[in-house]
């Protein structure tokens, strides 16, 4: 994804103490050295590079096959940059958060360049195929369990996404499998997320 480098370089126009690390991270990312890129982006964030560094670090986590951490790092709001939003969708998809991925892709579809748009289209088709089959009760159970686990691990944002996915998938079944529990978990996760946000 060379465009990510362009995005990062463009953000460096206002040079600061953390920008060297952002640039080094971008170079490592382009060279496929994703662990190094992640470290540089995180150091840049510690040195005051702002929320962009966090999103770049999340993109590196996607490449390192750590999607849940990436989803948590991206946060609930869509990324301003469509390329980063595509990475957010990828993170959701890898974390099996299909609804989250589909929503992100749908919202950003008009802003993608031609190549990313093609990839996004293929990914959405794949998501539709996955969701068109019969939803097993165990799948809903899995999402609820992951949501609870994420809440207990102090990641309410991730917990909320899993709860939403559980509610969405449960609602596709005739028996609305564990929909009430999914609703309760969503409420709990929202409250925890709000409390976390207030502490910040």
């Amino acid at each position, binding site marked *: 994804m060379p465009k990510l480098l362009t995005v990062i370089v463009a953000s460096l126009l206002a040079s600061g103490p953390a920008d060297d690390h952002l640039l080094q991270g971008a170079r490592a990312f382009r060279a496929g050295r994703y*662990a190094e890129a*992640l*470290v540089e982006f*995180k*150091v840049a964030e*510690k*040195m005051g590079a702002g929320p962009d560094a966090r999103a770049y670090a999340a993109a590196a986590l996607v490449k390192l096959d*750590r999607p849940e*951490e990436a989803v948590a790092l991206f946060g609930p709001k869509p990324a301003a940059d469509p390329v980063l939003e595509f990475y957010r969708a990828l993170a959701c998809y890898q974390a099996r958060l299909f609804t989250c991925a589909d929503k992100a892709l749908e919202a950003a579809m008009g802003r993608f360049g031609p190549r990313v748009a093609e990839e996004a289209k293929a990914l959405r088709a794949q998501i539709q195929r996955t969701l068109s089959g019969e939803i097993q009760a165990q799948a809903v159970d899995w999402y609820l369990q992951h949501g609870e686990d994420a809440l207990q691990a102090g990641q309410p944002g991730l917990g909320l996404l899993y709860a939403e996915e559980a509610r969405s998938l449960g609602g596709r079944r005739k028996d609305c499998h564990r929909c009430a529990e999914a609703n309760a978990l969503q409420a709990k996760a929202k409250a925890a997320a709000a409390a976390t946000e207030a502490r910040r």
Partner: protein
Amino acid sequence: MSLDAIHAPRAAAFALSLWAWAAGAEPIDCSKVEPAPAPDPAAARAYLEVGDAEWRQGRTATAAVAFREAIRLAPSSAPARARLLGLCRESGQAPDEDFDRAVRAVEEGRYEEALSVLGPRFAGKDAPDPATALLYGISLYERGDDAAAKRALELAAQSPQTADAASVFLGLLALRSGDSERAASMFDRADRGAEGDLARTARDLSALAKRDVRLAVSLQAEGGYDGNVSLYPGLSGPGDLGDLLFGGTVSALLRPFGQRGPYAVAGGRLKNFLTIDDYGLAWAGGAAGYRFERGRNELQVEYAYDGIWLGFQPFSHAHQLQVDGALDLPFARLGALASARAETYLPSQIAPPEIAAYSGPTFDGEASLGWGGGTMELRLRYRGQLHRSQEADRSWLDHGPGARALVAFPSSRLVVDAQVIVRTYGAEDPGFEGMIRQDQYLDGAISFQQDLDRQWSLYVSVGGRQAFSNVANLDYTRLYGSAGMIFTAGLW
């Protein structure tokens, strides 16, 4: 639950925990770090923090990248160098002869040697690396130094690389202290985090821990067939017909401090035959004792009293003192037992007056060697018994070898037991034409127990005895079998 069942999987858990580190390790660059042209301590601190955060999540490769950069920017940073060295050692890329020696010592059961190697590292100025903390904790656990083992294992449990193995041993410690609830929770935690055999071991231990309680009651109902009912001492000769049997047992166990310390058991049993009324048996008894443990070595002293009623009339009662223990040797587990029992037999409408002559002391002794543990166990033993009664021709000395094999499955157990006994009576018996009676017994039994859930289990048992005697007509064969249900409930 026996202590053996708990101790048995520890070696597997340990070996597998070592395997888990290696299997889960990511490739780490352990080559020499070239210093940057200009040091930057502030950036080095940021790299160190990022490295620590990654390391806490078990992301060793990313952590190593950060630590290397911290060293590059601040070559004198001791924390960064120590952390990178620790990661490289864990991944097997940095030679550490002392640590390797400690690993070998633990694997071969030389815990004192492991402690002497690991002790200075553990007590050093810097916090010990998790692998050292784990090995040190395991060695202390095996030595029986539980408080110190707990401190070391809790340190190891803070690291993702060693948390699962440490949880298993923390669970074993909790179990040893009688806290089965905490033990089950630790095993469950290890089960959730670990993979493969370590997870399976943790799961099995968790199931055992949930059954391990301080106050338990057990009820058993059985039905079966005894092919030679009349073998109760002195009542009649062999050869009576067999009969269907049915009965039940109730028992209670109290051990307020868990497996170590004082305990008391009490119980009763009823066994009746369908058509032969005189041999309906009732047994009631109780025992109190104290169990000492240090590491895998154990010693138990016990006083017991019991009584038997036959055909609803008092038949015998006895006081017994028993000491038994087991010691881990480098090549096997050595067990020993000694007991003294004062038996009194009582004449009644069913038991003839001469039954009283059997009264007297009985002394038992046994030595055994055992191998294996966990899923398979074999024990070879040699036992002897000396009975002194009021008349020499009713006294005896017997002895002989035996063997017991156990195969444990996740929720069932199969036990095979065999024993040879050679018995010689104490004097010529006028009733047997002045001969000194000499008998040989071959005993065998197989039992299978299947757990249906946490409280219910089903068992089937079959066995037999072939007796040979130098007295004509005293040879006999006895075959028996029974099946039943056992209900066990933990009340505390």
